[in-house]
C-alpha cells in the first residue's frame, strides 16, 4: 500500500496539504488557522452539537454550511472560516447559549468577538448548554456512564445517576473541569445532596489536573462550607 493519499484544499485563501480521512477542523488546526469550538475535545469522538465550528464550504459549484469538526477534507474544496453568514450563525448561537449561561467565560469571550448580545433572547438560566462534554467523557474515556442525557429537545439535560455516581464521581471529578459553565460540578453536588447525602465513596482526596485550560472551581468538602 502506497503512502496515505494527500489532499489539497483551500482554507481562507491558503493552500493546505493534508492526508485523506482528516476533518476540515483538523486541517485548519494543522495550518494554524483558528476555528472556535465548544463541544469538541481531542480525546472524544467529534460530536457536531454546538455548531460553532461551522464553516462555509464551496465544492463543485455548491456552497454549503457544515461543521468543520465532522466534515471530511476533500480535493479542491474552498473553505472559509469567516464570512458574513458564518459570523452571523456563530453570533446567534452564542446569543442562544447565553440565554442559559450568560457569564460563562468562553461565551463571554465569543460574544465580544462576534458582537453577540447576551440579552437578545428570553432568559432561561439553566446554566447547562448541553455540549455533552461531561456525558461523552464519562462514556468514552472513563467508561463509567455516571452521567447521561435524559429527555429530548429543549428539555434535554444531563443527569447524574445516583446509583453509579455515589461510587465513582468523587474519586474522579474529571468532567467538572471540562464543563464550560461549571454546571456539571453543581449538578453532581445537587444530586449528591438530594440522593445520597454523606454516602459518596471517597478513598483519598482527589488530585486531578484539569483536562483543558478551563478554570476549575475548587471542590470544598461539605463540612468546610457550613
Amino acid at each position, binding site marked *: 500500500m502506497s503512502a496515505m493519499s494527500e489532499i489539497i484544499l483551500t482554507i481562507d485563501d491558503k493552500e493546505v496539504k493534508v492526508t485523506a480521512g482528516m476533518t476540515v477542523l483538523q486541517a485548519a488546526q494543522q495550518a494554524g488557522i483558528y476555528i472556535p469550538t465548544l463541544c469538541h475535545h481531542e480525546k472524544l469522538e467529534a460530536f457536531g*452539537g454546538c*455548531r460553532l465550528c*461551522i464553516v462555509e464550504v464551496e465544492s463543485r459549484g455548491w456552497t454549503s454550511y457544515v*461543521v468543520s469538526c465532522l466534515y471530511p477534507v476533500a480535493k479542491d474544496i474552498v473553505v472559509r472560516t469567516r464570512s458574513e453568514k458564518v459570523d452571523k450563525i456563530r453570533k446567534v*448561537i452564542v446569543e*442562544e447559549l447565553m440565554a442559559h449561561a450568560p457569564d460563562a467565560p468562553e461565551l463571554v469571550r465569543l460574544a465580544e468577538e462576534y458582537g453577540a448580545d447576551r440579552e437578545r433572547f428570553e432568559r432561561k438560566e439553566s446554566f447547562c448548554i*448541553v455540549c455533552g462534554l461531561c456525558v461523552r467523557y464519562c462514556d468514552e474515556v472513563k467508561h463509567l456512564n455516571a452521567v447521561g442525557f435524559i429527555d429530548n*429537545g*429543549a428539555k434535554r439535560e444531563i443527569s447524574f445517576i445516583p446509583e453509579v455516581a455515589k461510587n465513582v464521581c468523587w474519586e474522579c471529578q474529571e468532567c467538572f473541569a471540562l464543563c464550560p459553565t461549571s454546571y456539571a460540578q453543581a449538578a453532581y453536588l445537587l444530586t449528591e445532596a438530594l440522593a445520597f447525602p454523606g454516602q459518596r465513596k471517597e478513598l483519598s482526596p482527589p488530585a486531578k489536573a484539569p483536562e483543558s485550560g478551563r478554570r476549575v472551581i475548587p471542590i470544598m468538602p461539605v463540612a468546610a462550607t457550613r
Partner: protein
Amino acid sequence: MTKLQSVAELEKFRAEILFRRDPAKPCIAVCAGAACDGMDSAAVAAAFLAEVARQTLGDKLEVRTTGCHGYCEKGPNVVVTPGEICYFEVQPTDVAEVIAATLKGEVVDRLVYKDPNTGAKAVHMNEVPFYKHQMRLLMGDNPKIDPMLIDDYLAVGGYAALVKALTEMTPQQVLDEVKKANLRGRGGGGFPAGSKWETTRNAPEKTKYVIVNGHEGESAAFMDRAMLTGNPHKVLEGLIIGAYAIGAQRGFMYTRHDMPLLEKHVRNALAQAKEYGLLGENILGSGFDFECELHFDVGIFVSGESSALMRSIEGNPPEPRPKYIRTSVSGIWDKPSNLNNVETWANVPQIISKGAEWFTSIGTEKSKGTKLISLSGNVVNSGIVEVPMGTPLRTLAFDIGGGVRDGKTLKAIHFGGAMGGSIPTDLIDAPLDFDGMSKLGAPIGAGGLLLMDEDTDMIEVARYLLDFLVNESCGKCAPCREGMPQMLHILTNMTQGKGKAGDLERLEDLAEVTGLGSLCALGKTSADPLKSMFRYFKPEYEARIVNIAGGSGTK
C-alpha cells in the same frame, strides 16, 4: 402450504387461484381503513358476514374486508363489484338492503353519491367526482384485496414483477430501469431513488440493508399507513426487488407502534410471504436470499429521519447524523443501507412490470408517476387521493376535494406539515411538482395537503407547527434545540397580543440561523412554514406588532 420453489410453481398456483374465483360473482368490499375503522366499519363488515351466513348466500356472494379505499370523509365505504358501485356512510342497518339489491343486480339509491350542490347522483366509481379525477395506480387495487390474504394479491397479479426481475433481469438491469424511470423519493426528500440504490450497490461492504420508512410522522399525512395496512404485499414486493437490485440480504420495515391493525397486517404479510417462499433462502429458486423484519418507532417524530431511524433500529436514541455521512454508504451498524419511503417502494413493481418508458410518460419533466396525497384540513372531501404529477392544485382542492367546507372561502393551502409551507389562493393553479412546489415555498413533503379557510390565523398556524417540532426535536444541536423554542416564544407572545418591537427581526435571524446551522432536516426546515408566511402573509404578522406597539417598531 408448501413453499413455492420456482417461478413455474408460483404461476401454476396463481392460475389455480384465478380458476377457483368467478369474476362474475358479486363481491361486497367493506373498507377497514383508519377512518372507516374509526367509524366502526368493523360492525358493518360483521353485519354483512352474519347476514350472508344467515341466508346461506356464501356461494352467491363474497364479502371482503379491505384496506383504505380513499374516500375517508364518507365512510364507512363499501364498493360492490361487478360495476364498482360505491356506497357511502353505510351502517349495519343497511346491510340487508344492500345484499338484496346486489343479488338482483340493482343499486340502493339512497346510499350512492349525491352532488351537494346539484343533487346529481353518481353510482360507479369512475363517475364519482372524488374518484374520477384520480389515477389510482397504487390505490386502485385496495378495494380488491383483503390485506390478510396473500392470495388476493396474487389474484390481481401480485409478485409478477418480482418474477420478471428475478428471471429476466440482472440486478444491474433492474437498477437501471428504476434510474431511467426517475422515481423520486416520496417521503419528503424527492431524491432520485435510482441514484440512492446505485450508491448503496457500489459501496464496498458486502453486507447491505434495505429499509422501508413507514414512520409517517408528518402531521396530516396518512397515506403511507393506508398503503402498508391496505396492501402490505405491494410494498414488500417493491422492497424485495430493490434488495435484489442493490445486493442487500436483509430488510427492515420500520413503522409506528400505535396502530394495532397495521402491525397485524404487516406481521401477517411477512409471515405469509415467508411461508410461500417469497422471503427467505433461494427465493423461487433464483439463488437470491432475503429476510425482512419489522421494527417500531417508539413515539417521536425525529425517528422518521433516515439516519435517526437507523440509530433506532440499532437500539440507540434516534439522533440524526449529518447528511455528508451518507447512509447509503454507512448506515445501520455502519453498513450501506438504502432507505426509501413506503410509497417509493410501492412504485417499484409497476416500473418493472410496465417499464420505465411507461412510467416516464406520466407526470412532468422532472417529477414522474403519480403521488398519493392526504387531503384534509377545512376540505369537504377529505381522504387519500392519487393523481399524476403535474395535476394543478385547483383540481385537488376543488374537483376532487370539493372545495372548502361550511361554505367558507379558501385562504391558503399548506403542504409538507411542520417542515413545509403555506401558499395563498392565487397560486392555486400551480402544478403538483417536486421542484415547482419547493420554489413556491410549499414543498410537497410526504404529500399531506391541507386546505385552510378564511378564518385561519396564520400566526397561530406557524406557532402550532413550531410547537409540534419543539416537542419532537432530539436536542443534540444548538440551533434547533435553542432556536426553535425562542421562535415559539416570540410567536406565542404575538398570538397573545404581546408582540413587541424587534420581534420580526429576531424571528428572521432565528429562522435563518436555524435553517443554516441545524444538523438535520428537522431543524433546517423548522422555520420554513414561518418563511412562507413572511413571503405571502407578512401584513398579517406586521399588524400584530403595529397594533400592540402603538404604531412603532415594524420591519
